[in-house]
């Protein structure tokens, strides 16, 4: 990459160099696990629209920036070759062009927006012959609970999914708003108490991806991340079998214990899950989880000092 970038920077005229800068920035961020290194169909489609939209705009933004610099330099007061035209204050042609170009670009981009929003609506299932895996997500202060209703197991701060199979997430929050986001798999979505959002993602190949909350949610927010492990089908079945051997089960009372504020929680699993638990949280039969239990003047609340 670097020799190519150097080539772009050195050999070509200004136009190329200016347009090369964002491309170089993008390619730098391409190789290391960000949103431009997608590992699933949704992330790939998001990234494609992002780059297309960027490309459409660079077509007018780069010439505009160059024109700004050239005009400013050429018409400097000390340049005796530049013609001073103090009466050049209106031109119907230019007026048409300066309204026309942005309008045309936005018309075009508007189409991209309309189609993209519908194609990539988080609620829209992924077309696939495989039956999607159901995962119910509950954001807690400050950890993630993943319930597998079909398998009857649950895990905290670790999401294991079979690779190549769509996953259908139903998401809610136990207390404050959070946002479920796995950069390499694509689309993020909010989790909110008393409401259920939905999301469809898939991982192309086995791998480990970084997941996090993308919505600040209080003192323990920085530790509110999780690992996504996309594994082959048989490894997934094996993981489920291991999870079924876990010590604890997730029922209402253990949920209420999990509900208390804590951060930097190591991943663990539950062997069994109360089937109605997610709905009970989402419909507020189980009350919203409590906040900090300290109250005094200017109360300072720290997450437990575990790090």
């Amino acid at each position: 990459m670097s020799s190519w970038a150097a080539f772009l920077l050195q050999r070509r005229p200004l136009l190329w160099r200016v347009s090369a800068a964002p491309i170089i920035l993008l390619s730098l961020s391409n190789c290391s696990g960000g949103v431009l290194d997608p590992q699933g169909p949704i992330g790939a489609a998001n990234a494609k629209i992002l780059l297309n939209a960027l490309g459409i705009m660079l077509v007018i933004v780069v010439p505009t920036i160059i024109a700004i610099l050239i005009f400013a330099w050429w018409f400097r007061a000390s340049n005796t070759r530049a013609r001073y035209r103090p009466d050049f204050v209106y031109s119907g042609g230019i007026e048409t062009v300066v309204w026309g170009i942005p309008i045309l670009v936005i018309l075009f981009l508007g189409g991209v927006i309309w189609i993209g929003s519908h194609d990539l609506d988080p609620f829209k299932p992924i077309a696939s012959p495989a039956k999607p895996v159901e995962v119910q997500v509950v954001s807690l202060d400050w950890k993630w609970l993943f319930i597998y209703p079909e398998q009857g197991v649950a895990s905290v701060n670790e999401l294991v999914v079979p690779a190549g199979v769509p996953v259908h997430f139903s998401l809610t929050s136990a207390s404050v708003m959070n946002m479920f986001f796995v950069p390499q798999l694509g689309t993020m979505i909010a989790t909110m108490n008393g409401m259920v959002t939905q999301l469809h993602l898939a991982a192309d190949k086995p791998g480990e991806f970084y997941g996090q909350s993308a919505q600040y949610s209080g003192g323990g927010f920085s530790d509110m991340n999780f690992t996504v492990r996309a594994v082959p089908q048989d490894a997934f079945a094996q993981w489920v079998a291991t999870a079924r051997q876990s010590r604890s089960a997730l029922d209402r009372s253990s949920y209420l214990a999990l509900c208390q504020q804590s951060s930097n929680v190591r991943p663990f699993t539950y062997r069994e899950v109360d089937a109605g638990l997610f709905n009970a949280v989402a419909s507020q039969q189980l009350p919203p989880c409590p906040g900090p239990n300290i109250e005094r003047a200017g109360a300072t609340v720290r997450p437990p000092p575990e790090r």
Partner: protein
Amino acid sequence: MFGKLTWDAIPWNQPIPLVAGAVVVLAVFAVVIWVVLKGYLPYLWREWITSVDHKRIGVMYTLLGVIMLLRGFIDAIMMRSQQAIAFRAAGYLPPEHYDQIFSAHGTIMIFFAAMPIVIGLMNFVVPLQLGVRDVAFPTLNSTSFWLTATGALLVNLSLVIGEFARTGWLVYPPLSELPYSPGVGVDYYLWALLISGVGTLMTGINFVTTILKIRAPGMSYLRMTIFCWTALAANLLIVAAFPILTATLGMLALDRYLGFHFFTNDAGGNMMMFINLIWAWGHPEVYILVLPAFGIFSEVISTFSGKPLFNYRSMVAATMFICLVSYMVWLHHFFTMGAGADVNAFFGISTSIIAVGTGVKVYNWLFTMYGGRIRFTTPMLWSLGFLVTFTIGGMTGVLLAVPPADFLLHNSLFLVAHFHNVIIAGVVFAAFAGITYWFPKAFGFKLDEGWGKAAFWLSLLGFYVVFMPLYVAGLLGMTRRLQHYDVAAWRPWVLVAGIGIVIMMAAAACQVIQFVVSVRRRNELRDATGDPWDGRSLEWATTSPPPPFNFAVLPNVQGAEPYWGIKQRAIETQQLSPEPKYEPIEMPRNSPTGFITAFFCTMTGFALIWHIWWMVALGLLAAYAVFVWFAWRDAVEYSIPAEEVARYDRERRRAREQWLAQHGGQPA
């Protein structure tokens, strides 16, 4: 007796806020003692604190904004340095402190730095450009300022007494509700903004009235400067948007104080309502800030290109277009909250439509430079830096308006980089351009160009070094507001941004030095003619600084760019227009109403925060009493005798005759 307030409220065990607070308190005391000992207090009281002169109020607003800009910048330094060290480490700011810092940074920068500077420049410039003596409601104007200062004071008080909100700058519920934020931080936020919000709303009413009803004879709408147009648009936005903010924060206050359930998790509350409402204010707020900034750049680019603004009418149309459309885009702040595809697509498209108006403006500035004779003064450099940088920020903004792209970038550092890109390049560069441009008008001498240019180049460089890496970090998936992080790929970019903030610090130092050097060299930098930049609009027609009454005789406007016309006529005929007949001028009397009201509002706000109910009642009663007392005043105005006006104006005419002698024969 003192509600929740105890000695525990002072953060004895946290050295950073304690030391910072102690330094600020000591500095304030030192300044007060110095003022008292030097005997400046009566002067300050008479000429500034009780002043209802729009120019004085404008200067005070701008000064407040600049001080708060420095305060918010210190927060920024702390955040950048914390993130630079907190890779697989705890850093030096624990979460409960770090979370206050980013919340305070946003709150202070938007409400108490950007807003006061923009409103301050409007205050100073708009009446002068309209060719009138003052705004429509001078005493209300003073009250607006002091209520804004109240808000700033309350926010800064939270540094030493209690804590500030740990919720982010828009206090999203349910995090900001009592169960999750039991401390006083959110209350500080609420009352600071509720009180200053009243002040801002009154400013809006004041300026809409002024621009619509009070203009010099002959100053029709299409002869107003673009800055006045953008000020009109921004104040229309204030009048329509700030009541939403007040109502929203009022509802949150009811939730927190009286057990209401507007936005709570339980009992039927809905936090989505808050987020919709706050952005229904929040997005127009962006344009409240940036439209006057566009106005400043329009003035500066036109003046220093030596040309009228290209396509003036198109510029007016684009301004009012943005003013209108800015109300139809708020949902783009939460595409990821799960609205359907139709809704997301609608708001995505409406957002990108705003780029049409902005694009037109950029091209009009571009063609204003075409065929010009560009002088690269400091204000012009800020404007050029703006044009290039803002174009990039606008592009990333449209990118974020594409919902599928936003699904990847929402709340990431890409977003943080985007809005700093538009706010720093748009509003902050405009603030510095405007301050440098109008400083000689306000104080009678120019700012030092050398240090100003150094500040510009360092700011520009610092901006790119801080925020371009943050764009990349965002693309790598780094989300905002992280107190620490473990992802190795983010680290280099965060470190580069940390270097950038050092460059920004050097830029800030240059600004301070620029000011000090200019004050010391003020006799060399003196502006004798009142027209240091060869300006085109009416503020340059009067002296620097202008007299309290602005113009000896209200100018008779005969076209767009009235002062340019006056100058051209003077050069053609080789004489000034004949001496007018001077008449006595009635000016509004100074009034301590604003200051005293704000004093009691501060008391009320503080008491509400700490639940000291008797003090709440006392403060409200007293603030009301001040208004009653003001309403019953006898003398409203004082008269400046015609001889004094004549004496002033003859002096001004002498300076202009000298100028004319220098420009004999040749057109300017």
